[in-house]
């Protein structure tokens, strides 16, 4: 059984919610998939397009495409989550291409959420350091981090979404992790 890390929109604690595994050739349970991954897909798309409004449109478009194509899902080619994130990725990249044709991208930084009033100065600094390090990551590594940290995909699913081998996905994640660690070490 597949497990998805489900988070509420405001709380970072995780809850485990099962996603029904799809049979080979059977359409996935779209409602369950949607409920389990709505916010995760949004987080991943927002990391890619770096624009809240565009992320909302792209996420809605991705779910609509997945809904319309749900009967063409093939379980032999990956998990329902990998399939869904692949659709979301294509939609996000199409948006990036469209924006690059019309104007230079002027995306805003990812929404960090409402700041906790009790954040200490030290914590705020470390948080800012990680945020800056995330922004400095190469796009593919930042995308891998979003899939791993925000969407909760395992390495195989990350590889399937990015269209690379599992070892390549692991290398991307390891590089990103190393850079993020360094940013914290430098801040300490």
């Amino acid at each position, binding site marked *: 059984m597949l497990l998805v890390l489900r988070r509420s929109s405001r709380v970072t604690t995780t809850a485990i919610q099962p996603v029904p595994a799809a049979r080979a050739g059977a359409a996935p349970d*779209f*409602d369950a998939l949607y409920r389990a991954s709505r916010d995760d897909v949004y987080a991943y798309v927002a990391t890619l397009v770096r624009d809240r409004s565009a992320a909302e449109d792209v996420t809605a478009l991705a779910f609509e495409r997945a809904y319309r194509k749900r009967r063409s899902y093939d379980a032999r080619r990956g998990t329902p989550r990998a399939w869904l994130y692949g659709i979301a990725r294509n939609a996000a990249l199409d948006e990036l291409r469209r924006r690059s044709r019309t104007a230079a991208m002027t995306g805003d930084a990812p929404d960090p959420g409402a700041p906790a009033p009790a954040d200490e100065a030290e914590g705020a600094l470390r948080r800012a350091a990680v945020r800056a390090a995330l922004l400095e990551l190469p796009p593919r590594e930042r995308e891998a981090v979003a899939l791993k940290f925000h969407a909760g995909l395992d390495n195989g699913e990350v590889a399937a979404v990015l269209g690379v081998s599992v*070892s390549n996905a*692991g290398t991307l994640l*390891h590089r990103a*992790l190393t850079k993020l660690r360094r940013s*914290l070490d430098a801040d300490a």
Partner: protein
Amino acid sequence: MRTPDTLDPAVERELAALDAALAGDRSDPALSELTALVRAERPVPVPRWADALDERVAAGFPRPPRRRRLRLPLLPTAAAVLASALVALVIAAGLLDGGGYPDGGGGETGGGAAGGVSAQEAEPAVSGGAAADSTGSIAPPPGAADDADGVRPRRVERSAYLTLAAPGEELARLGDRIIAVTDGLGGFVRSSNVQSGEMGGGGAFELRVPADRLDRALAQLSRLAHVRERTQAAQDITGETLDTAERLADARAERRALRRALAAAGDTREAARARAGLRRVAREIAAAQRALRAVQDRAAYATIQIALVADDDAGAGAPGDGRWTPGEALDDAVRVLEILASLLLVILAVAIPVGALVVGGRAARRWLSRSRRERAVDAA
């Protein structure tokens, strides 16, 4: 030895530790802090948008009503289908016109290569070809045809050969029906020979029917029994007819000259010589008239040779005048299947290259699209 698709063990350990930290393991405090800080950067949707999307999902993503119109990617497919259909129609028209139809009008396989005259060209027409005999009473042959300018009369001799198969005990009755068909069309039987019996038999007929009724005669005769073979031939005999007519005209001109010489003869010796000449010319005229009638008769009447063969498998009910027999139905079914197979072949000949182009185009488009998307990631 590690393959290129495997990770360094240290990297694998690091990734395993990351998975553990993401799952809540705090054995590596630095990594736990890092995962928490990265997760804190996770973009979160606003509730209003999330609620609106929930509603759309619950409604099944209703589409706004819009006018149906032909999508651009469908156009090449539609064009290919249309082109295939047109080619198939052209081929089918050619097949049905007799090109590939064994018993069709274009199926003449016999002699007459020298003549090479089609059935259409041999349509009967009133001809002035017999006018050379001003004293004769030869009717205009129905097998004659004029050129477009109507100046040069043309004569075509037509013939056909049929092999009819029927059970041995049916051959005698089949022979009677052949004669009836011939009489009904104004023709005659030049010769006939039928041996009938339960142990086998056979027969042969030579019929002469008016040339302009040859097609009708063949159609009626072909319905009398199972047709095993059918050939037609046409030969242009215009030159032969004109030569004979000119020979007759020359002989008559000589006869007129000899008559004048006889009238003007001064002595009995000259008169005797003129009379001898007139007798010779009279024989030549008679021979030329016979030859002219014969050649005109060849154009006026077509010859049909029929061979009867005993064949118990041909069906006892085969010799039914005007009936559509099971054997004929089977032949027709085979012909329909042949034509359908030809059509299918033509459609495949067009559809396979078009399909390959479409598949190749889609693959190229997919590759191009993927490559552009990957460039978009790098540019982000």
